[in-house]
């Protein structure tokens, strides 16, 4: 495993040049990504060019920014200027943004190098990266399994060392669930902590960009770079950005960690997952933390609430794809209404159309009170549950997903079963809370299990601290099973 810190050391010592690191990454992508399919676009030439410039600067003795020369992968729903950004949709197959998203701009300013754009469920709608219009991504631990989603490409790329770290987006678990399935760290920051400018919207009140990495330190370092108020995003928070790495090594002795009762009582929760996460809890206890059982009575209403609010917002956010201005247009019609209707019918896949229909319905006159407004009320109640919980504890602990990575195609014809894999991650989005998934074990078939920590609003420092302390104490990374894609 190579972390940002390790590469930085090597680069500084001159053991490897930036160009060598990029070339090595590119050749690894070329040799194994035809199987994993984590990338939709590999940024070969520009990445090599950027790396060569960094090597020049290093040779000249210039001071280098923190991520100098580090190959980073970006989920393909984050706009990159002059580089195709497709959202894994036919609709945007030819779309090349004339502007850069704020988060990626910050990464490039910090010296990071864009190695490629990663696959996702179309418009980030899905939990398996199977709804991509450009083919599914495989789980590096077992290629017959899904990597999770929607940021499956970004998770798989980090897991199979096809980049050092990556960015994803998380609307209902789209960072944490694939992180859990792929055995990497995935962080969803507090809503508004990170700018959404340039993130192609799925559900604006829930979407948040965050990092995937091989350890918690890297996640903290990436968050440090991308966090902060952005004048281009009214919903970004105007709160000072603390030093996220500062307290990672501080003991968690005395920290109160809440186990959400409703999560562990889930019917669909795998016994292996439950056991592994409870073991992680014991581990935290042995580090001095106090375990507290907590009830969040509305927790399980999250999924129903989410599947009204997210599609409602999506139905409006995706209305702009009409074949008029950019993107896919069906030409062989004579009238405007047909052009728009057929362009949308052909440009969007089934899952996207399903969600647009659900959202349109939920906002329609006569239904808006029963669905959209009711869902907003429940959302408030869910948030209140968390407020109450955080009066008693500092950090909450749950499994990230009820299961480990499921087989490709398993949930194709059963959207509800697919939706359930986000059952445990959705409430943090509804409440806008920061949350991290990190590996805590393996099931008997060798698939990674993830545990989820949820913090209070803007409490990323403690969230990362607990995660880091756990990571340091556990044997999880040391006991990684032999996997050719990861170790080769």
């Amino acid at each position, binding site marked *: 495993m190579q972390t940002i810190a390790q590469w930085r050391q090597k680069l500084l010592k001159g053991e490897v040049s930036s160009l060598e690191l990029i070339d090595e990454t590119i050749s690894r992508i070329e040799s194994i990504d035809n199987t994993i399919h984590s990338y939709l676009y590999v940024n070969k030439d520009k990445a090599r060019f950027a790396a060569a410039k960094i090597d020049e600067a290093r040779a000249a003795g210039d001071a280098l920014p923190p991520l100098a020369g580090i190959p980073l992968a970006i989920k393909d729903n984050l706009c990159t200027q002059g580089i195709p950004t497709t959202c894994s949709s036919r609709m945007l197959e030819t779309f090349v943004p004339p502007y850069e*998203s704020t988060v990626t701009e910050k990464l490039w300013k910090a010296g990071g190098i864009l190695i490629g754009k990663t696959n996702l469920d179309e418009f980030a709608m899905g939990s398996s990266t199977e709804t991509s219009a450009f083919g599914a991504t495989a789980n590096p631990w077992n290629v017959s399994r899904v990597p999770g989603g929607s940021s499956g490409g970004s998770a798989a790329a980090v897991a199979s060392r096809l980049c050092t770290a990556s960015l994803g987006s998380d609307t209902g678990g789209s960072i944490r669930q694939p992180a859990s399935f792929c055995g990497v760290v995935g962080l969803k920051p507090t809503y508004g902590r990170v700018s959404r400018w340039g993130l192609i919207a799925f559900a604006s009140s829930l979407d948040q960009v965050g990092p995937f990495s091989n350890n918690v330190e890297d996640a903290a370092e990436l968050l440090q770079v991308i966090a902060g108020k952005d004048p281009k*995003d009214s919903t970004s928070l105007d709160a000072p950005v603390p030093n996220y790495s500062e307290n990672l090594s501080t003991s968690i002795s005395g920290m109160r960690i809440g186990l959400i009762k409703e999560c562990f009582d889930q019917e669909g929760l795998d016994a292996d997952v439950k056991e592994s996460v409870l073991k992680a809890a014991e581990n935290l206890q042995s580090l001095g933390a106090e375990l507290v059982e907590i009830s969040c009575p509305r927790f399980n209403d999250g999924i129903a609430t989410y599947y009204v609010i997210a599609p409602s917002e999506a139905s409006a956010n995706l209305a702009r794809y009409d074949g008029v201005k950019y993107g896919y247009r069906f030409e062989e019609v004579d009238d405007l209404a047909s052009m728009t209707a057929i362009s949308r019918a052909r440009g969007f896949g089934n899952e996207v159309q399903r969600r647009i229909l659900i959202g349109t319905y939920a906002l329609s*006159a006569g239904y808006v009170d029963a669905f959209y407004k009711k869902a907003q009320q429940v959302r408030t109640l869910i948030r209140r549950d968390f407020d109450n919980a955080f009066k008693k504890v500092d950090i909450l602990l749950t499994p990230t997903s009820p299961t480990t990575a499921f087989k490709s195609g398993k949930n194709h014809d059963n959207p509800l079963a697919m939706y359930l894999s986000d059952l445990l991650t959705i409430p943090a989005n509804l409440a806008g809370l920061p949350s991290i998934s990190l590996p805590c074990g393996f099931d008997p078939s060798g698939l990674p299990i993830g545990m989820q920590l949820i913090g209070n609003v803007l409490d990323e420092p403690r969230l990362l601290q607990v995660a880091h302390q756990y990571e340091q104490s556990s044997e999880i990374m040391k006991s990684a099973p032999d996997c050719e894609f990861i170790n080769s």
Partner: protein
Amino acid sequence: MPQAAVEWEPVIGLETHVQLGTSSKIFTAASTNFGDEPNTHIDPVVCGLPGTLPVLNKRVLEYAVKAAMALNLKIAQHCKFDRKQYFYPDLPKNYQISQYDEPIAEDGWIEVEVAEKGKDTYLKTIGIERLHMEEDAGKLVHAGSDRLAGSTYSLVDYNRAGVALAEIVSKPDLRTGREASEYASEIRRIVRYLGVSDGNMQEGSLRCDVNISVRRGSDAPFGTKVEIKNMNSFSAIQKACDYEIKRQIKTYESGGTVLQETRLWDENKQLTKSMRSKEGSSDYRYFPDPDLGPIEVSIELQDQWRSELPELPSAKRHRYAKELGLSAYDSRVLTDDSQMASYFENVVLAGCDAKLASNWITGDLAAYVNAQRITFDKLLFLPEQLAELIQLIVEGKISGKIAKEILPGLLEKGGSPKNIVESQNLGMISDPKLIEKKIDELFSQFPNEVESYRAGKKKLQGFFIGQLMKNTSGKVDPKLANQILSKKLNAN
């Protein structure tokens, strides 16, 4: 015996869209300039490119709040933006960011002065339901037709898309076409006074839609409402309302029914024609825009903005009539344009009589300003200079005739009338001895006319004055000259 028919009462309400005159758009920095090449004032936000986000232009909020204050509306301490969804290519996102159930301001009123030739002028208070902020749409240009239907292809220009609008909705308090047009022009006057819009109807920066129905007497329930669009002058508003009132009454009286529909005013044919039925009206699927947080206007900010409001036209009208003794008509003309009003006030401030100032300003000066297509603040002839000119006449230093003669030069270049009069020796002859001498010369020049006068042809006095003026290049004091002339003619 059949009961006498109750009079028909028209009920009219106006929805006015005012483009707020900020230099950048409501949610992005793109320019709002009018009349440039298509799609030159666009950016990724205007075009609704994926991943872009709106950020409210603070100046738009200020303009909207100031307009709301001037319309006596109550400012909401919290409000929000909503998405109004419908598919149309002039709307880049296929939703319009607007305000639905929580507008920035509600429940206000304005006073309008309804003046019509041959009728008594009266004041009327018109209620205002609400004012809200929203973004404008772009424009479609259809090839081969003026409508989308029937065109071979259509082009879209997004220059106007995202320009800030304030939509002002009146209560259904208007009863005649004249009231409707007076209301609309008062709205324009107010936004112009505030400097929040140029209110140019031709360029579409002020657009009015009329809702109109008729009913049997003022206690009857409202009749079926018809919406009229496409009026681009105040007189068109008046005529469209008057036409529609007659059409609806005629329809009812001939046993027909008025349909709920949108009609267009046809300026060429001077009539309204059906555009589309309103039945089965659109479901806009409004919901709060999650990209824009709640809007809060603190009391402190409200106080500050309120303190920056200028004196508004109705207050000025009352003040001119009450304190300066001007007629309602003069007050109305002077206050129609805030620059004119401000010029007038500066002339009065320089010590000039209000009525005299008003005559000069609404007469010669206004004619010049209109002909030059400028505004009063651009005049080189300054208010103090006009006051000085009027003062010269009042003091008898020059005649009105001389004043009119030197005015064109003053309007063109400005300058001190006093200096011009002195340097060009235009001062009035008001020395009685000198006037007497001039009259003696005249008498010896026209002995026959003197005789005829004395024989009773009194009308000849005008002839002598005319000659006297001619001989003195109009500089003789006419009042004094007349006195001396009568005395001398009637002396023997």
